[in-house]
C-alpha cells in the first residue's frame, strides 16, 4: 500500500505543478497594485516603488515565476504583505481549526447518516423512509452559511447555550468543543444528508444481490444479514463517494468560518482577497489544492480497508 501511495503521490506532481502555475497567473491578474495595497492609497510614489522592487514585482514574469517555485520547493511561502508575518506561520496557526471543523462535519455525517440511511432502506416506503428522504433533500439544498445563521439565532441569541463567534482556545477542550459545535452542525448537515442518501440507495442495491437471498435462505436472522452481508458491502461506495465529498466540505468550510467568524483557511483566504494580500492568497490556494490531492489519495487508500478485494499493485 505504501508503494502505491508513493506512486500516486508521484503522479500528482505534474498536476500540482500546473496548479501552481494557475495560481501564479490568477494572483498576477488580480486588479490593483500589491504595493499600494500594502502601503495604502496615501503612500508616496517613492515608497511604493521601493516596496515593488523589494517584493520583486519589477522582475520579468518568468523570473517571478521561477522565484515563486524556488521558494515553494524550500517550503518558504513568503511573508504577508499586510501583516508582515510569514505566511507559513499564519497557515499553520489556522489549519488545525479548518481540519477540526471538516473532520467534525465528516464524523457527524457518518455518525448520523449511516443509521438514518439504514433505517430508511430497511423500512422502505414507510414513514421513516419518507421522513429521511425529505430530510436528505433539505439537507443537500440548504446552504451551510444560512444554516449557520439559523443556528446562531436559535442556540446563541435566543437560548444563549453556545458562543456566537470565534474559534476558542484550540487546546482547551471545553472551550474548543463549545466553539466548534454549531459550525460543525452547519457543515455536517450536508454530509449527513449525503451519507443518508448514499447509504439508503447502496443498501437497496445490495439487498437485491443473490448472496443476500442465499444468506436469508440459510436461515440467518435479518439483523445478521443486514450487518454481516449487506452493510459491509454497502459501505464501499459510501466510503468512496463520502471521501470525495470531503473536498466539497473543505470548500464549504470557508462560508461557515466566515459566518461564525472562526479562524481558518477560508477566513484567511477571503481576508487576503479583500486586503489584496497576494502572498497569502497564492499560498492559501496552493495549500487548498494540496489538501484536495491528499484527500483524494486517502479516499483511494481507504477503499482497501473496506473492500479486501482491492489490491494495491
Amino acid at each position, binding site marked *: 500500500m505504501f508503494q502505491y501511495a508513493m506512486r500516486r503521490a508521484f503522479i500528482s506532481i505534474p498536476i500540482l505543478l500546473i496548479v501552481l502555475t494557475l495560481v501564479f497567473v*490568477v494572483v498576477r491578474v488580480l486588479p490593483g497594485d500589491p504595493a499600494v495595497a500594502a502601503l495604502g492609497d496615501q503612500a508616496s510614489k517613492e515608497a511604493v516603488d521601493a516596496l515593488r522592487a523589494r517584493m520583486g514585482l519589477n522582475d520579468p514574469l518568468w523570473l517571478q515565476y521561477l522565484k515563486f517555485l524556488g521558494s515553494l520547493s524550500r517550503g518558504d511561502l513568503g511573508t504577508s504583505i499586510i501583516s508582515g508575518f510569514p505566511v507559513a506561520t499564519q497557515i499553520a496557526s489556522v489549519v488545525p481549526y479548518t481540519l477540526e471543523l471538516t473532520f467534525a462535519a465528516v464524523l457527524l455525517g457518518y455518525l448520523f447518516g449511516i443509521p438514518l440511511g439504514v433505517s430508511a432502506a430497511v423500512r*422502505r416506503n414507510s414513514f421513516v423512509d419518507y421522513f429521511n428522504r425529505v430530510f436528505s433533500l433539505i439537507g443537500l*439544498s440548504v446552504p451551510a452559511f*444560512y444554516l449557520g445563521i439559523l443556528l446562531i439565532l436559535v442556540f446563541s441569541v435566543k437560548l444563549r447555550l453556545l458562543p456566537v463567534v470565534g474559534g476558542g482556545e484550540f487546546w482547551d477542550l471545553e472551550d474548543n468543543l463549545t466553539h466548534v459545535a454549531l459550525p460543525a452542525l452547519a457543515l455536517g448537515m450536508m454530509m449527513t444528508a449525503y451519507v443518508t442518501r448514499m447509504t439508503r*440507495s447502496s443498501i437497496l442495491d445490495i439487498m437485491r444481490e443473490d448472496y443476500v437471498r442465499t444468506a436469508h435462505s440459510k436461515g440467518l436472522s435479518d439483523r445478521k444479514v443486514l450487518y454481516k452481508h449487506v452493510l459491509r458491502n454497502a459501505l464501499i461506495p459510501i466510503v468512496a463517494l463520502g471521501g470525495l465529498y470531503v473536498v466539497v466540505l473543505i*470548500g464549504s468550510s*470557508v*462560508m461557515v468560518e*466566515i459566518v461564525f467568524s472562526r479562524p481558518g483557511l477560508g477566513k484567511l483566504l477571503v481576508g487576503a482577497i479583500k486586503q489584496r494580500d497576494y502572498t497569502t492568497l497564492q499560498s492559501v490556494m496552493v495549500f487548498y489544492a494540496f489538501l484536495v490531492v491528499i484527500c483524494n489519495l486517502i479516499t483511494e487508500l481507504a477503499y482497501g480497508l473496506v473492500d479486501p478485494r482491492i489490491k494495491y499493485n
Partner: protein
Amino acid sequence: MRLAFFRNRTAIAGGAIAALIFLTAVFAPWIAPYDPLDQDPIFRLEPGGEEHWLGTDDFGRDVMSRLIWGSRISLVIGFASVLIGMIAGTALGMIAGYYRGRMETTIMRGIDVVMSFPDLILAVAITAALGATLVNLILTIGVVMIPGFARMAHSALLTMREREFVIAARGLGARDRRILLKHILPNIFGELLVAGTLWVGVAIRLEANLAFIGLGVQPPTPTWGNMIREGVDVLINAPGISIYSGLCILITILAFNMLGDGVRDMIDPRLRGI
C-alpha cells in the same frame, strides 16, 4: 416518459415551485409592491405589517420587493452558468472521449487541474481576478461547472464511440462532427439534462455564497445572497431579512433538486425511489 414524470409527485412539486419562481422573476416589476431601491429612512427595520408585508431593511427598503427582484439574479446566474458549463464541458468531454490520444490527455489533465480546487475556492479566486459583475459571475460559475459536464460526457463517449450505430455512421463516411452532434449527442443528452437541472441549484448556491462574501453582484442591486449579508448586520433587531432571503435560496435549490431527481427517475427507471 411523460407519464412517468407526471406520476412522480416530487418532480411535479419541484417543477411547479421552479415554475412559480421563474414567473415571479419574469413578472417582478408588476408583482413587487415597491421599487426595490426606494429608501425610506423613517421606516427603517420595520417589522412585517400591512404596508410592508415582510418589513423593511436598514435603509427602509421593502424586503418583499427586494426578494421578488432578487429572484432574477439567482435564476439568470443559475441558468446561464449551467448552460455555459454544459456547452463547454460537453464539447471538451466529447472531443476527449472521441479522439482519445494526446487530445484526451491534454483535456482531461486540464480538467483534473481545475478539479484540484474546491468549487467555492476556485469561484472566489476567479471572481476576485475578474471583478464582481453579473457577466463575470456567470462566466466564473460556468467555468466551475465545466469539469463535471466534461467528465460525464467523456465517460459516456468512451462506451458510445464503440457502439454499432457509431461504427456504422463512420463506415458510411459521416464526418466526425456529424457523428458527434447528430448520433452521439442525442444519446447522452438526457443524462446531461438531469445533471444540468440538479446543478442549477448548485450554481444558485455558489452565487449566494459569493454574494455573502461580498463578491456577488454589488449593492444596491437586490440579490438573495446580498440580502442575507445585509441582514446579518441587523440579525438581532430584524432577523427576518436574513431568514426570508435564505428561505428563498433554500426553496429554489430544493425545487431544482426535486425536479432533477424526478427527471432522473424518468430517464433511468432503475433509479426510481433510490
